[in-house]
């Protein structure tokens, strides 16, 4: 009973601190401490959100579609690369440095190039998301595959298991935990990546909406879309958490 009480208070704590922050913000803005056109109050932002909701809704779908398609391909590519690198040591030696180097290239820097190469439609955005996602996925999976216990692999061999069977029954499930931790981070980067590449050219999406409201100095709408983007990221992270629970039922029992 006591434990339950404590856990509800600890659940309430972050909610309370966020509410307090919003209240201070509201005060600062309402009292005119910071000019209202520069820092709109939370209430104004809500109003802007509601009045522009149909537009935001429409653009969200575009951004989400780019994010999801990019995530899907990023995961597939990451998975295949990690598997190849795990199966063939020469492949790992050849590819691993390249994989690392790609990560030193700032995504923001290649986004304009992608737009020049692939135009204003969805393709360059998806490619950027793939670029952002495949690295953490590859590295986390590879680490997971390599972390498998030698004795377990010996046991599998003693039962006559081949390379593929060892992969399927031992290495793959052993890497799932790593994979989901990296995916949790990757999804939020993916959303941001999609938005950034929309800034640089496009016809629809939350990033395009952002550049448009920026041009008209609609700070309230600007904040509304920022909040929406972080809400979407949070939602996706939550989705990953649910997926993890579903895919790793043994983790829930300890």
């Amino acid at each position, binding site marked *: 009973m006591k434990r339950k009480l404590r856990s509800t208070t600890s659940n309430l704590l972050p909610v309370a601190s966020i509410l307090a922050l919003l209240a201070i913000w509201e005060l600062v803005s309402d009292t005119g401490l910071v000019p209202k056109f520069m820092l709109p109050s939370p209430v104004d932002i809500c109003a802007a959100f509601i009045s522009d909701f149909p537009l935001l809704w429409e653009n969200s779908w575009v951004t989400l579609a780019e994010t999801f398609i990019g995530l899907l391909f990023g995961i597939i590519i990451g998975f295949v690369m990690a598997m190849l690198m795990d199966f063939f040591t020469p492949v790992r030696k050849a590819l691993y440095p390249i994989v690392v180097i790609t990560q030193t290239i700032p995504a923001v820097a290649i986004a304009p190039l992608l737009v020049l190469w692939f135009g204003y439609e969805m393709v360059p955005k998806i490619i950027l998301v793939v670029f952002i996602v495949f690295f953490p996925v590859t590295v986390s999976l590879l680490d997971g595959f390599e972390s498998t216990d030698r*004795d377990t692999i010996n046991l599998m061999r003693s039962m006559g298991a081949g390379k593929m069977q060892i992969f399927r029954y031992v290495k793959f499930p*052993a890497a799932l935990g790593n994979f989901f931790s990296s995916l949790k981070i990757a999804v939020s980067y993916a959303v941001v990546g999609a938005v950034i590449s929309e800034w640089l050219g496009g016809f629809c999406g939350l990033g395009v909406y952002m550049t448009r409201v920026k041009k008209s100095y609609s700070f309230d709408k600007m904040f509304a879309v920022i909040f929406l983007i972080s809400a979407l990221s949070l939602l996706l992270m939550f989705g990953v958490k649910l997926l993890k629970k579903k895919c790793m039922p043994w983790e829930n*029992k300890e």
Partner: protein
Amino acid sequence: MNELIIKDVSFSYTGGENVIENINLSLKEGELVSILGVSGCGKSTLFNVVSGLRKARTGTITLAGEDITGKPGKISYMLQKDLLLPYRTIEDNVALPLILSGMRKKEARAQVQDGIKRFGLDGVQKKYPSELSGGMRQRAALLRTYMFSSKAALLDEPFSALDTLTKSEMHAWYLKVMDEIKLSTLFITHDIDEAILLSDRICLMTGKPATISEEIIITQPRPRSRDFTLTTEFLQYKKQILEKL
């Protein structure tokens, strides 16, 4: 005849001196032979060679007339740890050898149910290894070993990780089950009492490089009860072994 014959087997890790040398051992159908030796003498190494995980430098291993030297996947092997896969339920762990040999999951599950009852795992088959006690995990690992092949099994200290009470419980259980399933077993242990209680023969492994220096036959008929450990006969055996180790 499901006889296991180990003939003149020597082995060394890359570049080193022989760890085991000229090991000769045979295991008849339904027999339980223990290998007793101090820690680090090369018992697990011998099993790695017999199971085919490591290549013998010299010698041959034959199971039921087939040369299995250097061929993994022929003989059941339970390694020193239970090594249950944490992400599979108990029944799926136990059914793994069947699935690896190409059986459908559903069929494999159905086939292990009998063993699950016999090994006292009824009611936990849907649980994960982390939810089980040490003794139960060990039984599940034993059952998995048995599901792989009923010809012969190599057990590397299957009970050494258990506390004394659980261990003696497991001995009583094992004596009973062993008599039902008639599995030929090579059994590593460094517990002398355990060796005398369970085995038909005890091979002492000594020296550097290690060889089988002595073979002691325990004549007491099986199944034995725990009371056997209290007899003078038992103490005689123990004295004999201690002198020679």
